[in-house]
């Protein structure tokens, strides 16, 4: 196997800066994603965690060229993704959205929603084939055939998310960006949907970029996890490795915030509570973005931004001190 085809998705130094108007004349840049690099193997799940506003969703959307990236490159199957080939690559890369209520067109029936990707890419010869394909996918995500002619508003949140997943699966993609697909659902429904994601992966061999802020869910579904803070990835490791021996101080505090089901253990554990607020992404601290809230911060942290370095076993951490 050549070096190029080892990874399905390769992201290198991806940057997404949004122009923000300040006052009447001045404008500044909001660095939503600031130099993110990661790779995803075929059939693998990479979890992406971080608090609200740290740029997780923007990474997913920029990756799929829903936003024009400021700089950096994305390779899919070794092929550089550009404006020219993105239309054909959309068959390979799909997205499941966070909000199952606003991501489905209220004017369309379930059949039309799932059939839309087929229409756009002309993936059927006649109406019967289109219908058969749609019914197959619906069965795959656990929807009944009689649901096909209903409208999205007639379904519950979990069912709507299944419709969204079916739409993403319709073109038989190799890679799906799941943008917080369960955070709008009830906990009991979350489990169903998460298990469905795993089943689908086992059946279809599709790779996920699974964006979430719930570490427990991410740990459950992911092979590897990347932790983001203010537009940068601070740590990437295998899911179990990250859970058992986190290195970056931000990951440590995130993990300590995860609720523990056993009250005896929970009493013994110590929460690491971060001081201060997340700095505004309009006015980022110099050097390491986390240094303003880090108890290990030194002068070096303010002067220079740490890069991701391998600490063995592919456990990459961006920190000077740990």
């Amino acid at each position, binding site marked *: 196997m050549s070096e190029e085809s080892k990874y399905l998705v390769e992201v290198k130094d991806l940057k997404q800066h949004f122009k923000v108007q300040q006052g009447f004349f001045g404008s500044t840049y909001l660095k939503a994603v600031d130099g993110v690099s990661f790779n995803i193997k075929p059939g693998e799940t990479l979890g992406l965690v971080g608090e609200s506003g740290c740029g997780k969703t923007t990474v997913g959307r920029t990756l799929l060229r829903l936003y024009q990236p400021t700089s950096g490159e994305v390779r899919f199957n070794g092929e550089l993704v550009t404006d020219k080939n993105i239309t054909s690559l959309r068959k390979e890369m799909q997205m499941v959205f*966070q909000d199952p209520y606003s991501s*489905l*067109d209220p004017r369309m029936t379930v059949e039309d929603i799932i059939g839309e990707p087929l229409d*756009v890419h002309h993936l059927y010869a006649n109406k019967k084939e289109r219908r058969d394909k749609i019914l197959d996918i619906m069965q795959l995500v656990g929807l009944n055939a*009689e649901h096909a002619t209903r409208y999205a508003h007639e379904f519950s949140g979990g069912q709507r998310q299944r419709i969204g997943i079916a*739409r993403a699966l319709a073109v038989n993609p190799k890679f799906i960006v799941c943008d917080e697909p369960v955070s709008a659902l009830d906990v009991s429904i979350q489990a169903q949907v998460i298990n469905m994601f795993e089943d689908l992966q086992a059946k279809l061999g599709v790779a996920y970029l699974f964006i979430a802020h719930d570490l427990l869910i991410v740990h459950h579904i992911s092979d590897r996890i990347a932790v983001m803070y203010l537009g940068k990835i601070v740590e990437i490791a295998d899911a179990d490795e990250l859970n058992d021996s986190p290195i970056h101080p931000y990951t440590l505090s995130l993990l300590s915030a995860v609720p523990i089901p056993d009250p005896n253990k929970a009493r013994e554990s110590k929460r690491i509570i971060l001081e201060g607020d997340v700095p505004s992404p309009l006015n980022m601290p110099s050097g390491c973005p986390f240094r303003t809230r880090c108890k290990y911060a030194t002068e070096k942290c303010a002067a220079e931004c740490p890069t991701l370095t391998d600490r063995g076993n592919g456990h990459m951490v961006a920190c000077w001190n740990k």
Partner: protein
Amino acid sequence: MEMPKKNLLSAQLDLKKFEKATDEEKRQADVMSESTTFFKDGMRKLMKNPLAVGSIIVLILVVLMITVVPAFVPYSYEEIISVNGVRDSSAKNLAPFEYSTLEQQYIAEGGKIFPHIMGTDELCRDYFIRVVYGTRVSLFVGLFASIVVLVIGVLYGAVSGYAGGKIDLIMMRIVDIIYSLPDLLVIILLSVVFRETLDLSGIPVIGSLGSNMVSLFLVFGLLYWVGMARLVRAEILSIKENEYVLAAKSIGAKPGHIIKKHILPNCISVIIIATALQIPSAIFTESYLSFLGLGVALPMPSLGSLANSARQAMSSNALKLVFPATMICLIVLAFNLLGDGLRDAFDPKLRK
């Protein structure tokens, strides 16, 4: 299988008290409301709205009247009544179902005369057929002007709202400029120009309506679409922020597909309402232009010009004003109520 209780106060359920659902019972739970297409469903709901159904009936009756009545009423809208080939100058300003002295003579001699259902006007013309023709002209003007407004306004608004940014800015400033032009002045100027330059006598429908109507349509096409364009743009600006538009983009849909399949269907209720309101507004515009002498060319009547000429003789013959005014009210009210009904019926979010 009996399960032993852990303790006396346990809330543990006794499985023996439950029985499995039969297949039929399971099927009963599956049956849900029958599914239909978007259009069928909307029409079904529309038909349950008594006001909307009433408006549809009124509009159908009006349309039937203006198409069927001229075929069996023996008078024409410009014909001065004559009896036995003799011009009847006594048939001036007759009351409804009244006959002139000449006609009474003729009937007494055994002849048959079709009654003047709404009487006659001051030029001895049958008023009923003039009201029918006036309704025809007014409806035609209203519908045609609304279609012009609809097509231009929706296209312009959709492009402006979807493109956004600088294109939107420029397109909306053009709309602002057009908004500030005095429409009446433009109509007057255009009609003066057209009266001198255009020869419409050869063209079938437009020719009998006159050059004033051409300038009216032109003004609707030039100026009146801006309201529709603004409405559509505002609606599209909010719709395109929805995630399903982003989802369509992530599927690989082109902008044309997104506008056609997602954005326009979602602002259709706004467009329907605006169009339904545009028709009566166009009828009103035609009426006040007729009032100013800028309406349809004589002797072609319109509801506006009929009402205007009746106004002068209001003290002597008030009914002459009542007939065209009632027609205007009926048509305008029916379109408004129908527009409301359509909006309620075709908005799935309001559906029970």
